């Protein structure tokens, strides 16, 4: 293992891999990425693959509008097919009040160039043929939202980063940070020490542990892991449920067909406190709860076999917005963590923004640094809650 590096990134998920790639792209020659398990093993490989700009606040809409533009070209840029497809997100309203809320959200999204529109149930049925339209009044439909393969995305970023000289060490847990007089001097791992002056904490659910190693309070950024599960069915004919389809009023339940193998991923907002940071054991109550809603959205799913269930973490902050930026207490300590279920979809732009912040001190990515300020929690200054799901 290398004994020194210019930048060390902790966390080999979509965010960490994207930061590594973007640093290399900016010409930083000496980058190390550390992952305690295998790449993607934390949260990315357990996500539902969705990518959307349908948020309900300006900062997230602007960032995601930009990100979708990045996603469109990412296969070409990384020279590896990441299976990005603009199959849309379809949110479904069950009450008149919800239709009004959708209209307000659509207005805000349209203001920033996101082409969401209100559709009736006939159009929804054309988009998702087996949809049970009866309980719904209208849909918020953005055909520009989409999905990509989380496995291929992490691999593609890592592969390209390696080609450009980044050293990636998997199965290498970080055991400590060396900080002297407020400056980073190195990272201790189970396989040795790497001297460095710059560290990026991209450990998401595990980020508070890394912050503590840097001498910060563990709850300086109060990221809580919530077990979030997915149930997946056997493949069905392609094109049946391509968009992520979600009636938010139904416990944030959603269905989305895997763009690659055609199985249907079903999720619901049943959050569980994990027993530990390694507890990704699926639970039976989730299985029953998620299928109750999924078979109401798509009744024909009753006849489809469930083949897999797995769990991962939503690394949640109190306002469900991530902490992205520079940590002022330790010189050259950066963080991009606490994505609350949105890390995968934000990874291209966040990686680019953090890399530019490190190298140039500013970024051309439309990322509202103040909105995502890691110090907002200690000031008790929360943002409006980011719309979750998917």
């Amino acid at each position, binding site marked *: 293992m290398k004994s020194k590096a210019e930048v060390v990134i902790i966390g080999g998920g979509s965010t960490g891999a994207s930061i590594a790639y973007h640093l290399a792209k900016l010409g930083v020659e000496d980058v190390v990425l550390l992952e305690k398990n*295998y*790449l*993607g*093993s934390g949260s990315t*490989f357990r996500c539902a693959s969705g990518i959307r700009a349908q948020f309900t606040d300006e900062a997230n809409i602007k960032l995601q509008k930009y990100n979708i533009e990045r996603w469109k070209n990412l296969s070409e840029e990384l020279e590896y097919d990441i299976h990005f497809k603009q199959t849309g997100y379809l949110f479904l309203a069950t009450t008149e009040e919800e239709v009004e809320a959708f209209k307000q959200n659509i207005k805000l999204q349209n203001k920033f160039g996101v082409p969401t529109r209100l559709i009736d149930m006939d159009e929804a049925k054309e988009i998702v043929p087996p949809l049970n339209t009866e309980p719904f009044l209208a849909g918020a439909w953005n055909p520009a939202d989409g999905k990509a393969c989380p*496995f*291929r995305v992490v*691999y593609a970023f890592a592969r390209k980063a390696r080609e450009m000289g980044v050293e990636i060490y*998997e199965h290498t847990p970080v055991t400590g940070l060396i900080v002297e007089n407020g400056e980073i001097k190195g990272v201790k791992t189970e396989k040795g020490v790497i001297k460095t002056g710059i560290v990026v904490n991209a450990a998401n659910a595990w980020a508070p542990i890394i912050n503590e190693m840097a001498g910060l309070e563990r709850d300086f950024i109060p990221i809580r892991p919530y077990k979030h599960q997915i149930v997946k*069915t*056997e493949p069905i004919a392609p094109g049946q449920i391509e968009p992520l389809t979600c009636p938010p009023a139904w416990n944030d339940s959603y269905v989305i067909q895997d763009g*690659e*193998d055609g199985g249907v991923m079903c999720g619901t907002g049943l959050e569980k406190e994990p027993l530990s940071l390694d507890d990704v054991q*699926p639970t039976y109550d989730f*299985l*029953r709860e998620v*299928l*109750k809603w*999924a*078979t109401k959205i798509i009744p024909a*799913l*009753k*006849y*489809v*076999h*469930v*083949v*897999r*269930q*797995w769990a991962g973490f939503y690394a949640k902050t109190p306002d469900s917005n991530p902490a992205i930026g520079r940590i002022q207490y330790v010189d050259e300590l950066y963080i991009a963590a606490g994505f609350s279920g949105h890390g995968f979809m934000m990874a291209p732009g966040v990686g680019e923004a953090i890399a530019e912040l490190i190298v140039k001190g500013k970024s051309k990515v439309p990322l509202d640094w103040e909105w995502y300020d890691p110090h907002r929690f200690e000031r008790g200054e929360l943002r409006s809650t980011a719309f979750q799901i998917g």
Partner: protein
Amino acid sequence: MSDKKNIIICRCNEVTQEEIEALIDQGITDIEMIKRLLRIGMGPCQGRTCLPMVVSILARKTGKKPEEIKLPATRIPVRPVPAGVLVGEMESDENEE
């Protein structure tokens, strides 16, 4: 010598021996990544057919002992179950709950 293009290792997702070996030749020797890039072990059989064979191929090509290669997590349900059965609205063919 049989044609590796025609040897199916993962029957659920139709992955051939050639595809697996090509990935290993590119340096992807972690079974977790092989699994996810080729979708072996992710079909209805949950890897019962393919994973032992992938371990053998990996062992042979990397010089590791098969027991050194840790299998990916087994996902529940072990056998596919219709969603309707799990929500209690149908009986399965085998009358199992």
